[in-house]
């Protein structure tokens, strides 16, 4: 008989589900009271918001372009001030209220339970029973034996542990007490089970979980229902169904926790006499009529069949299931926007408005990351002790991402906007990038755990490293996701784009903006990438110094001592060379593609300044093609690596990116570009930033492909490809990508005219037209004495018109229609300045007809400028 896997090798499922429950309940409580506040203050909020937006919009100190969006948003938040803080207060009250009420219930519960069930000390009548419980407690290492209570009038035979740390109690049914005299081993097994709850430290967690459920109903559900019933029906449905989903999540997570704790207690209780001992006998003898016919998710206890199976083989407890991952994604997806909104409202008007929200999101991400870190650690132990099984990591990762995706429309802001899904390709891209990052972080965490498990001891530091690394990585991923989402929703305010699937030039431009924004605003990519590739490999290096494959497995991984000769299962050796070779090949291919792109850029796009968009598009396409090379390399490496596929793929992607970045810089030098630090930085940062994401996506796809291949044809999936095969695949894919990418970049499509209008209008056009309006008013305010007009015209107004001309002439436009508009505007501004100069001269020389001609010419120029303004407004809105 092989030794059983030890489910106590890390934090248990009970803890996992408890954290999820708390996260979900706190977020849902905040959501409910936020909605309650909105339901009763909607009109006041909307009118104040509109007033604030108008006030900020009319304030000339704020940049009206997209670049000034964040400043304007903060200004609106400051303007909302006390209203936002009031909303935050309600939201916080809901979150804290759910927990505080639950804690109070748990504190009062022992006394209430004793009173309601009329429990008395067993010692008064049967001191021998108490002595036996004390002896079993001592055997289980529990120093303070719990009080043993019963209700003599009860006919029951159940047992129940309750109380608080330092003062636990066990209530026994008289039938169970009788069992001590009729079947002592069975009595001991049940007592061990109850003591196991104490040893597992799940008693308070369980009662808290139960209390949280009731607290949620009383503190959040009831007030919200009353509030919604009194509010507009239009608010009832969007908030109502979201609250229903949250209620289901809390209820089902609570049930999951209750089931998990029983299984862990069964296993701990079975440690003394093994998988076929008294505990198994008690479960096996359980009356079959007691079978719970409710669906598994609704049950409080697992079936005795399931309990018996877990006692005999606890391995399933170590593996993370798809449902748990989905629930975690859902809880996180609900909590993150809630935490972000709460901090945003709370810090409204303060300087912490930006960092506060990011910190809140990072904290929630890190908390969930730590929980997932523990889960992958445990799953790794299961693979080592019992072999592969359960849901494959990529499926679990997808379930996690699916939870986040499903949670996306659950936020209150989504309820207010009645928007379920992204409406622009940039928002879609932001969401997709977030999901990819989450999937990749999970798969990477699996590798980290795999690497550190090879080291074997000491257990706690190794496990803490895995949990800490996963926490940091998930915090990074979700913070990045929120940043992306904020950017994309901000951009959506400026442009309504066509569907996702069309290859409209404006859509391409929108995604390029997202990437450029990413490249410009992050300095962490190197650190993240180095950690992502380095951490699992560091574990490998550590292992090679400390442990040999022939070493015995660590005792902490088993409930019983493993038989002599038991091997610590490894899934194959780790070799870094193929990843390095693939990276070099991928990087070289990427360089060739970029070089070819530059030649295409020169040869085909031409130098027509009116069609600059085509050159911009080719330039952007080069980044995409480079990213494609990284993606393909990472995917191939991940798919072909038996061990640490994510780490190997990230290493290959890093090498690809470094080689491609260096090659691109070298190619630029060869093609005559002037290289300086800024130029190299501008070139390299987007490549690295985009490459990181491409590698994460490619590696995830590769792991997924491997899982599918393994499911379809296991033998073939395990076959190793030689280096030649790797190179052939990488080069072939890079060439294909290059061809497709360049063709897409150059072929057909419409010019991004709408974007061009928008950019020019927001950067220069509107400002010029507004300034001309101001100048017009200045002219109208000049002295009616003609000679007195000459000096201010020459000293102030004419130079201002000329400065406006210079600004228009220097404006960046990419398409022919906008360029022509810009050129017309510049010409008219010059004409206006010239006519004013002529007017001044004519006045000085007393030339009446000349004065009239100049006025007519100036008026015509002014009309044309106003026409240009109207055209801009018509295109931008």
């Amino acid at each position, binding site marked *: 008989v092989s030794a059983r896997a030890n489910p106590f090798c890390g934090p248990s499922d009970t803890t996992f589900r408890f954290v999820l429950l708390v996260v979900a309940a706190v977020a849902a409580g905040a959501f409910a009271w936020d909605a309650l506040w909105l339901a009763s203050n909607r009109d006041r909020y909307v009118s104040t918001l509109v007033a604030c937006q108008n006030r900020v919009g009319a304030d000339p100190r704020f940049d009206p372009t997209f670049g000034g969006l964040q400043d304007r948003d903060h200004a609106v938040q400051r303007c909302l001030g006390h209203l936002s803080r009031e909303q935050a207060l309600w939201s916080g009250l809901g979150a804290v209220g759910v927990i505080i009420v639950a804690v109070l219930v748990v504190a009062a519960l022992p006394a209430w339970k004793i009173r309601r069930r009329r429990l008395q000390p067993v010692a008064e009548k049967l001191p021998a029973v108490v002595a036996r419980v004390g002896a079993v407690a001592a055997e289980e290492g529990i120093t303070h034996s719990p009080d043993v209570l019963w209700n003599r*009038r009860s*006919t029951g*035979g159940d047992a*129940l542990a309750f109380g608080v740390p330092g003062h636990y109690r066990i209530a026994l049914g008289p039938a169970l007490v009788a069992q001590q005299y009729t079947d002592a081993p069975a009595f001991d097994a049940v007592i061990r089970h109850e003591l196991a709850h104490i040893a597992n430290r799940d008693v308070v967690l369980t009662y808290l979980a139960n209390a949280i459920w009731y607290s949620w109903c009383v503190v959040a559900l009831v007030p919200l229902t009353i509030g919604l019933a009194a509010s507009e029906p239009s608010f009832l449905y969007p908030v109502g169904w979201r609250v229903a989903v949250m209620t289901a999540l809390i209820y089902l997570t609570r049930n999951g926790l209750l089931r998990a704790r029983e299984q862990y207690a069964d296993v701990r209780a079975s440690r003394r006499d093994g998988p076929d001992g008294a505990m198994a006998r008690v479960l096996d003898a359980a009356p079959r009529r007691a079978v719970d016919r409710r669906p598994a998710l609704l049950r409080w206890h697992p079936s*005795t069949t399931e309990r018996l199976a877990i006692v005999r083989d606890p391995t399933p407890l170590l593996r993370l299931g798809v449902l748990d991952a989905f629930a975690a994604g859902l809880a996180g997806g609900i909590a993150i926007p809630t935490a972000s909104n709460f901090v945003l409202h709370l810090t409204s008007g303060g300087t912490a408005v930006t960092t506060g929200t990011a910190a809140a999101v990072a904290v929630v991400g890190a908390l969930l990351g730590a929980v997932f870190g523990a889960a992958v650690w445990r799953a790794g132990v299961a693979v080592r002790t019992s072999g592969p099984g359960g849901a494959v990591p990529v499926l679990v990762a997808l379930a996690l991402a699916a939870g986040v995706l499903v949670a996306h429309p659950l936020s209150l802001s989504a309820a207010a906007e009645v928007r379920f899904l992204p409406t622009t390709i940039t928002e879609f891209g932001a969401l997709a990038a977030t999901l990819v990052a989450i999937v990749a972080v999970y798969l990477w965490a699996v590798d980290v755990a795999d690497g550190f498990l090879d080291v074997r001891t000491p257990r706690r530091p190794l496990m803490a490293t895995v949990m800490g690394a996963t926490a940091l990585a998930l915090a990074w991923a979700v913070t990045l996701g929120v940043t992306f989402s904020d950017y994309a929703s901000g951009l959506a305010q400026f442009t309504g784009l066509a569907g996702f699937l069309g290859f409209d030039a404006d859509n391409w431009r929108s995604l390029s903006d997202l990437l450029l924004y990413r490249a410009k605003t992050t300095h962490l990519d190197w650190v993240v990438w180095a950690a992502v590739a380095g951490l699992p490999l560091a574990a490998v290096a550590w292992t090679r110094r400390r442990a040999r494959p022939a070493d015995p497995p660590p005792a902490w991984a088993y409930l019983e001592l493993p038989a002599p000769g038991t091997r610590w299962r490894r899934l194959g050796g780790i070799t870094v060379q193929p990843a390095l070779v693939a990276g070099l090949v991928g990087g070289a291919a990427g360089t060739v593609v970029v070089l070819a792109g530059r030649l295409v850029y020169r040869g085909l796009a031409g130098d027509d300044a009116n069609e600059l968009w085509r050159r911009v598009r080719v330039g952007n396409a080069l980044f995409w093609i480079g990213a494609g090379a990284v993606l393909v390399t990472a995917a191939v490496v991940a798919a072909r690596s038996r061990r640490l596929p994510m780490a190997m793929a990230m290493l290959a992607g890093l090498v690809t990116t470094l080689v491609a970045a260096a090659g691109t810089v070298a190619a630029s030098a060869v093609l005559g570009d002037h290289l300086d630090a800024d130029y190299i930085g501008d070139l390299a940062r987007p490549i690295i930033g985009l490459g990181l994401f491409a590698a994460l996506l490619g590696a995830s796809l590769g792991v997924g492909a491997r899982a599918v291949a393994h499911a379809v044809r296991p033998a073939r999936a395990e076959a190793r490809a030689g280096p030649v095969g790797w190179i052939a695949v990488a080069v072939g894919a890079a060439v294909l990508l290059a061809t497709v990418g360049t063709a897409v970049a150059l072929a057909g499509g419409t010019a991004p005219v709408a974007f061009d209008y928008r950019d020019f209008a927001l950067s220069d056009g509107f400002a010029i037209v507004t300034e001309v309006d101001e100048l017009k008013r200045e002219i109208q305010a000049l002295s009616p004495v003609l000679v007195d007009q000459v000096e201010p015209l020459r000293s102030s107004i004419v130079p201002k018109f000329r400065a406006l001309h210079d600004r228009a002439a220097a404006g960046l436009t990419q398409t022919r229609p906008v360029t022509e508009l810009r050129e017309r505007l510049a010409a008219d501004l010059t004409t206006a300045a010239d006519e004013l100069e002529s007017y001044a001269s004519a006045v000085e020389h007393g030339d009446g007809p000349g004065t009239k001609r100049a006025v007519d010419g100036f008026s015509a120029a002014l009309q044309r400028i106003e026409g240009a303004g109207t055209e801009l407004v018509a295109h931008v809105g």
Partner: protein
Amino acid sequence: VPGADDSLILDVSRHVVSDLAPGELEVFDATGDAYLEAPAGKDGEEMLGFGVEAVAFVTPFVVMATKAVVSYLSEVVSKALKEESDSVVAGYVKRLFRRFHDDDPEPAPVQLSLAEIKKAREVALTEAKALGMKAERANLLANAIAGELVTQA
């Protein structure tokens, strides 16, 4: 139970328990008297309990069934005493005049008929089943209590 003797119920129950589940005797001494009142039941389904109950515990069933049987027997005796009260009173008065009737036998104690013993068994069986005992064990319990009615000390 009017006239019922708690100690009689407990004495009979202890005999029955010693036959059916001798291991429970110690628990019987600690809990038996508690079941003279209506038992508190099983406290409902315990969400956070062990989840699997001990299968055999006869003490509360024995006490409650014995209590029902004693109650029934009290009724039988009361009825018999009422029917025979006239002749019994005359007999006792007659016996007061000893010199005339010194050799008359004492009035016979109330004797249970076979039908009444069967009825007492039926009462025990019904009570045990009503309390939730399985039919097989309830039969054993009813037999044991009925046995107490026919067994000589």
